[in-house]
């Protein structure tokens, strides 16, 4: 297997002969592993997989998606999640278990046309996806400009260690929320900044497969072409995952916050679900290494305290957007510590979710690894 590392494939191409495990977008026919998509074939220790370069979004459990409310029934909302399946958001998820269709006005919380950030909590071949907004940072997106990109481009838009999206955010003074389904919402104070960010995002989508893209984005955004501040990897984690990513965002999987807080949150409080999602997944891996979920909260707290990433996920107040000041950094660290404490109490309860999240880790990681390699090539 050593001779096969990465290879461009189209459907029907034989990737390798032999007794390897088919992982993703490949099938076994006879003694051969055959690709079923256009993409880059990779042979790993686990088996053979193909990272696809095209395709629509197919929901997966624990994906964070951005959806649009398209309809409502007496007990749930129908949400367009940019897929061939429309998602259901049960009213009980928003109102609590004592929801009463007679008493509660669903339109008061979410009206048709609203954009929401949500997590897919259930999906299989037999039924449409069910989503939830019961997490911090999930819920209604109060404002912003939305656009759709191909779901296969999402890892590229995020970039290695979040580099691409950080570059765009910092240069345009905007916040970008990315759904795993390819829906992106850009918010910011200046219309010019939003437009520039949208232009950059579209450029990333169109030229995702080309090398040296980060440099071209910097040229587009007039960012001085200096070596970006490297996230400090001072953390002594043995994980292959970058520290900057693992450190942030200890929250998304199981932390429960009332939806109202999301609904009432100012645009500044909009955070980045996907990036956090990834980060939490990184933590999941670390958790695997530690193989002790009871220490989850503490571990996360430890990670959080050593975060020094330039674009923290703290609430982006004006100064935080422009440049990360030490003040904002320390504040975000405090917050993360607090979140971790919260999470520690919840993690045990929703252990099932954390386990499921591991399946999701692969998709993003594959994308990131692909990106890493491209970057290295360039």
């Amino acid at each position, binding site marked *: 297997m050593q001779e096969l*590392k*990465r*290879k*461009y494939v*189209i*459907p*029907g*191409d*034989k990737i390798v002969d032999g007794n390897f495990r088919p992982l993703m*977008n490949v*099938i076994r*026919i006879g003694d051969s592993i*055959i690709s*079923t*998509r*256009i993409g*880059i074939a990779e042979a790993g220790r686990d088996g053979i997989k193909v990272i*696809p*370069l*095209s*395709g*629509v979004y*197919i929901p997966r459990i624990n994906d964070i998606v951005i959806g649009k409310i398209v309809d409502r029934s007496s007990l749930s909302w129908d949400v367009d999640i940019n897929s*061939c*399946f*429309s998602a259901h958001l049960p009213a009980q998820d928003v109102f609590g278990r004592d929801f009463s269709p007679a008493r509660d006005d669903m339109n008061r919380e979410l009206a048709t046309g609203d954009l929401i950030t949500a997590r897919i909590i259930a999906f299989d*071949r*037999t039924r449409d996806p069910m989503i939830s907004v019961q997490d911090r940072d999930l819920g209604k997106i109060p404002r912003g400009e939305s656009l759709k990109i191909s779901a*296969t481009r999402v890892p590229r838009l995020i970039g290695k260690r979040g580099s691409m999206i950080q570059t765009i955010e910092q240069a345009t003074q905007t916040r970008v929320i990315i759904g795993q389904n390819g829906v992106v919402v850009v918010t910011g104070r200046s219309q010019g900044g939003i437009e520039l960010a949208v232009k950059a995002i579209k450029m990333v989508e169109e030229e995702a*497969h*080309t090398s040296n893209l980060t440099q071209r984005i910097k040229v587009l955004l007039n960012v001085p072409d200096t070596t970006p501040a490297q996230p400090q990897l001072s953390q002594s984690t043995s994980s292959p995952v970058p520290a900057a990513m693992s450190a942030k965002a200890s929250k998304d999987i199981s932390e429960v916050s009332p939806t109202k807080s999301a609904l009432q949150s100012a645009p500044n409080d909009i955070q980045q679900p996907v990036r956090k999602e990834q980060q939490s997944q990184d933590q999941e891996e670390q958790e695997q290494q530690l193989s002790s979920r009871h220490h989850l909260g503490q571990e996360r707290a430890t990670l959080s305290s050593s975060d020094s990433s330039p674009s923290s996920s703290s609430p982006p107040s004006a100064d935080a957007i422009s440049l990360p000041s030490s003040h904002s950094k320390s504040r975000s660290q405090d917050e993360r510590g607090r979140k971790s404490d919260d999470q520690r109490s919840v993690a045990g309860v929703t252990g099932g979710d954390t386990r499921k999240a591991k399946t999701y880790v692969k998709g993003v990681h594959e994308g990131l690894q692909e990106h*890493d*390699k491209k970057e*290295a*090539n360039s």
Partner: protein
Amino acid sequence: MSQTRSLIDKQGKRTDGRTVEQLREVKMTVGVVKNADGSVFIEFGKNKIIVAVYGPREVHPKHMAQPDRCVLRCRYHMSPFSTDTRKNPAPSRREVEISKVMREALEPALMLEDYPRAAIDVYVEVLQADGGSRCAGISAASVALADAGINMRDLVAACAAGKVDDKIVLDINDTEDKEGGADMPVAYMPHLDEVTLLQLDGILTRDQFNQCFDTAVEGCKMVYEIQKQALMQKYFGNETEVKEEVQ
């Protein structure tokens, strides 16, 4: 289907100057329809066809949805200006039939069970017709489906062979189709070595049939190389191998 005039000259050249085993010039461009999930523009000799693929997407009307698999819907349509005399744009018997055989030619290559309760729509719009448009349409549709990112076991390449002047010739054109002795369109999955479409219009002996079939399959393999090149060009440019990064 009796032939009235000779379609192959003394030098062995056909009406359009090709030899008996020569394919018409084939050109494919991937990703020409922005709104579609996958699309291809194919020029197969004088045939000009646009194929657009949408999906997997929600099935409307809902009762058409299958609980265990995806529905593949195919629409072959000739534009009114695609032939020398105006063609009525309403779906003709021939178009309905070709839509059906195209769907059946593509279905074995698709992993439809991966997308239950969804639908994939394939629109094949013939802008200019010159014989062999169903083969060109199938070849282009297969590439468009791959472009749309739908799981496939293999690409489907299609090419016709036929009998002209009692000789088996590859890729018959409009004149040969109308005036020749036989026309045999074949769709073929090259890696799986399976045939997904085999039609025959005309009369062939057993030997001629075998020879004609083998010729058509060879043509399919040539078309496959062009399909592969078109897809590679769209996604990977001129690179053929992934450059390994320096550690």
